Each structure stands twice: as structure tokens, then as C-alpha cells.
């Protein structure tokens, strides 16, 4: 079942000079129920604007957005009934205790105090909030406030969860907890859309992604598809006891994307799997190879490459 369908979405903001800014420019994607979808892109790409349309905060300029089959324009109340969201901006009741934050949030989503209390234990443990349950967020650190905001999503079981850079400001430990919680929720059948700057987070979590820049999708598909768009790269790091002069020439013959030799360390970037292996066996044959490492392209590299390509295409 398709949980989220975005078709030809356009969102324009008025500009002070009387013109318009097209923050989202003809974006389409769908997310199946129970899947995790990532929206990636640099600052100002249009991620949050897309999220705001999905959550009925802003009406689309044109295009159609359906959440569990409900149109965000004509059935906005039903749409809100089907989702909960962590907005990019902080959103906590700073004057209420963390416990009361949970109770009010639950009540707004139709849960009684008893129902919230029942679920609170697990959520509090998951996000390490035991100590601060009776404190007010006005007295808490930024990362803790964010944890309170994110934790609320796991109290209710709305079918669609939307997370706009949810882990911003969290330390590594809590990022991990959040990532794990998100994955668990997806396994129970909840559909998740997230935006992130943490590329390894998307890589780790998402079933599919869309990379957007200037409001347009520059690449999209399943994680594997995106990686295979001729963007695949292998990074070899080779450490030698000593390096002979001929090695540089030999490696150059493989026409690597990039080659750096510093002291006794060679760093090579190549596109093909077999090229990487051939270079490695060449290195081994010198008898002086001390240490090697091969890593594949991270989403970050894919992302930089895509944006570079796009720029080249646009002649910039």
C-alpha cells in the first residue's frame, strides 16, 4: 500500500521584491507503507518546505500530496489524524515538565493519561529521560530538549512519522538510540519520512531516498539504485614500507579518478570494482605493502558528485 504520494509538488514563497521563490519545484515520489524514506539535500534545498506541505502547515502552490490516501488540501484534518511530526525547529512546552509534555501531546492525539503513562516507561528509557521527567525543558540542555521532542513521536502510534532533522543537536549515543527507535517503528508497519544532513544516518536507515537541490530531485530511488547510478566509487588506501618511483606510473595506467601519494601512503579513487582489485594485486606484488583499506563511496560522495554533475550540466 502506498502511504505517501507526492505528485508534481510545487511550492512558491512570495519574495520581498514582489517576485516568487520556487522552494520546491516539481517534486514527485511515493513511499510504501512500513518503509523509511530519506529526503536529502544541502541547506535551502527545499526539504523542510516539502515537510511543511506534507504536514498541512503550508498549502502547496500546485501538485498533489496524499497521506494514507487523504489529500493535504481537501482532507487536511484526516491527514493530521494520520501523522505525527518532529519539525526542524524546536517544539517543546518549555514551562511544563517533561512528563506533562508527554501527557499533553498524548491528549492531543487522543490518548488518555493512563494510556500515555503506560507507554511512557519504554520511551523514557529509550531516550534516557528518567532523570529529567519532572524537570521543565526551560532548564534542560538543547540536546535534551530535542530528545523530549523526538520521544513524543514514539508515544502515539500514528501510521506516518515525519522527522525533519530529528537528531540535530543530539550526541552520538542518543543519535544511535533515535536511529534504532526509528528502525523499530518501521518494522511495526509505520511509514517514516526523514530529512537529514547526516548521510550515514540515511544510508543506515533508509529504504529509498531522494536527493534534492534547488527544489528539484537530482537523484532518487532505492539506496542501491542511487549508489549504482554510475556514481559508485572505491577508495583504496595503501601503505608501503617504501615506494619505488615506478609505482606512480603503474597506477596511473589504470586511469584513476584521483591519485595522491604522500610519503609512503597511496590514496587512489577508482570507479570500477575490478580496477580496485587490480591495483591491490599490483600493490601486493611489490612485496612492500604494509597495510591496505578499501572503502566504497558514502552517500556524501554520491551527493557531492551529483551536485557537481548537475552544475556542470547547467554550465556553471
Amino acid at each position, binding site marked *: 500500500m502506498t502511504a505517501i504520494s507526492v505528485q508534481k509538488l510545487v511550492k512558491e514563497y512570495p519574495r520581498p521584491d514582489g517576485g516568487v521563490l520556487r522552494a520546491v519545484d516539481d517534486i514527485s515520489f511515493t513511499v510504501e507503507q512500513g518503509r523509511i524514506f530519506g529526503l536529502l539535500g544541502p541547506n535551502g534545498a527545499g526539504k523542510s518546505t516539502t515537510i511543511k506541505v506534507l504536514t498541512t502547515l503550508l498549502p502547496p502552490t500546485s501538485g498533489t500530496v496524499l497521506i494514507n490516501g487523504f489529500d493535504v488540501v481537501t482532507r487536511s*484534518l484526516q491527514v493530521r489524524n494520520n501523522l*505525527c511530526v518532529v519539525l526542524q*525547529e524546536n*517544539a517543546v512546552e518549555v*514551562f*511544563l515538565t517533561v512528563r506533562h509534555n508527554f501527557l*499533553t501531546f498524548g491528549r*492531543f492525539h*487522543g490518548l488518555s493519561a493512563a494510556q500515555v503513562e503506560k507507554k511512557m516507561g519504554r520511551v523514557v528509557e529509550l531516550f534516557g529521560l528518567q532523570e529529567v521527567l519532572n524537570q521543565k525543558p526551560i532548564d534542560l540542555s538543547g540536546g535534551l530538549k530535542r530528545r523530549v521532542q523526538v520521544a513524543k513521536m514514539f508515544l502515539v502510534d500514528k501510521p506516518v512519522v515525519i522527522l525533519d532533522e530529528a537528531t540535530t543537536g543530539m550526541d552520538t549515543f542518543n543519535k544511535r538510540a533515535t536511529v534504532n527507535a526509528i528502525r523499530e517503528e518501521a518494522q511495526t508497519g509505520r511509514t517514516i519520512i526523514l530529512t537529514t544532513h547526516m548521510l550515514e544516518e540515511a544510508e543506515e536507515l533508509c529504504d529509498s531516498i531522494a536527493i534534492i537541490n534547488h527544489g528539484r530531485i537530482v537523484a532518487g530511488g532505492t539506496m542501491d539504485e542511487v549508489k549504482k547510478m554510475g556514481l559508485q566509487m572505491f577508495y583504496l588506501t595503501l601503505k608501503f614500507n617504501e615506494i619505488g618511483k615506478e609505482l606512480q606510473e603503474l597506477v596511473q595506467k589504470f586511469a584513476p579518478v584521483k591519485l595522491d601519494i604522500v610519503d609512503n601512503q597511496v590514496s587512489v579513487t577508482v570507479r570500477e570494482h575490478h580496477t580496485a582489485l587490480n591495483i591491490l594485486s599490483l600493490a601486493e606484488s611489490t612485496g612492500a605493502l604494509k597495510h591496505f583499506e578499501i572503502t566504497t563511496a558514502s552517500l556524501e560522495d554520491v551527493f557531492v558528485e551529483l551536485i557537481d554533475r548537475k552544475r556542470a550540466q547547467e554550465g556553471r
Partner: protein
Amino acid sequence: MRNVMAVVYRDALIRLTSLTWLFFDMAVPLLYLLMFGVGFNKAVGMGVTMDGAAVAYNDFFLAGVLSMSCFGSAINQSYGFFVDRDNGIFYEFLTYPMTRGELLLGKMLFQCIMALAQTALTLTAAVWLLNVPLNITLLPLTILGVMAGIAGWFFALSIVAFRIRRNDTFNTVINVAYFVLMFVSSMFYPLDAVPLWLKYLSYANPLTWHTDVLRYLTVGIGSGVVILAESAGFLLFLLVSFWFAQQALKKAA
């Protein structure tokens, strides 16, 4: 209704965290009444003349106090939108499964509940301390009138709060507007005694309509037909404000 009550519950929790706020909320109309009442009552001496009859200033001014505190409560409650916006929770509210109207109604209802206590205090003080001859039979209507006043002004001020996104600008605009509205109304003086231009202007002011209705309900001053027209006028003002407030809220994100 469940959603409206969720808003009331939330606002109640917030208000209870600040006893100072709660105290002043309750005490302000009382202070108005005692300060203006005692002061002006002395200064004006034999009171004001309404429809040819002399009326003690305290009796006259009670309705002014009530309508003033409705306006004050509405300012406080609409200012809350700026606080919620600063905390970001305002935007999250807009993603909760409730209509924009329910959010506004919940906020209004909470303020009305607060007003019940406020009004009870004010009326008790008026009767016991200032000997105002309060019409007890019309008391339920007086309470309804107070609630309508809060609703009308809260919706109207919310429109301003949603359109003006800066709280400093909001404060300035509302302060000036409040001052002008009070001056051009029947809150402090009978309109028979003022220049004609001011009288006409005052009758175009919902604050006058509201005050006049409350004055009729509390101490029986005013003519039935005019009061009926003013009630209808204020009700219309309330409904139109509610409609525009919902529209403004839809564009507030």
C-alpha cells in the same frame, strides 16, 4: 469537543505553573474596580447622569470594569500565541489532529473559565464593598455577556497576532488600539455627556456595545431596544472575528 478540551487542559497546566500570573489574572479587575471606583466615586461626587437620572459612579463603572477585564484577558490569551511561537510548539499544534477552529475555541474556552472566577470576585467586591445594586436575576446573562466579550476580543486580537508576526509590534499596536477604543467608548463616561462626533464614533465601537449590554445586565441602565441592537452587533462582531481568525490561522505557519 475532545480536542477543544485538550487545548483547555494544556492551557490550564501552563497557567498553573505560574501562580504569579494566576494571581494577577484574578486580581486585576478587582484592582480596577477598587481604584477607579473609590477614586472616581469621590471625585465625581453625585455620580453621572444617565437618561436624566443620577447614577452613582461605582454603579456606572462596574460594567466598564467587566468589559475592560474581558479585553485584558483577550490580550493576554492572544499574546500567548507569541510565546508558543517562540517555543516552536505553536507550529506543532498546527500539525495535531484538530481543526484550526478547535484550537481557537479551546483557547477561548479556557479564558472564559478563568473569567468565571474573575467575574465572581469582581461582582462580590462590587456588591459588598461598593454597594452596587447588582441585578441578581440577570446574573446568568451577565456571565454569558462576559464570556461573549472574551470570545469576541480574543478572536479579533488573534487575527492581529497571526498577521503581525513580531511581538514587539503587536504590543505597540494593541496598546494604542486599546487606548483609542477605551477613549471612544462608553466605558468611563456616559455618551450623552460627550461631543456629538465622539458619541457617533463611540457607537461604532464594539467595546461600547459590550459595555452597554453589561451595564444593562448588571445595574439596569439603558433602553431595551438599543441594548438588543448592541447585543446583536457584538454577536456579529464575535462571529465575523472567529471566521477571520480561522482564516488567519490557516496562513500563520
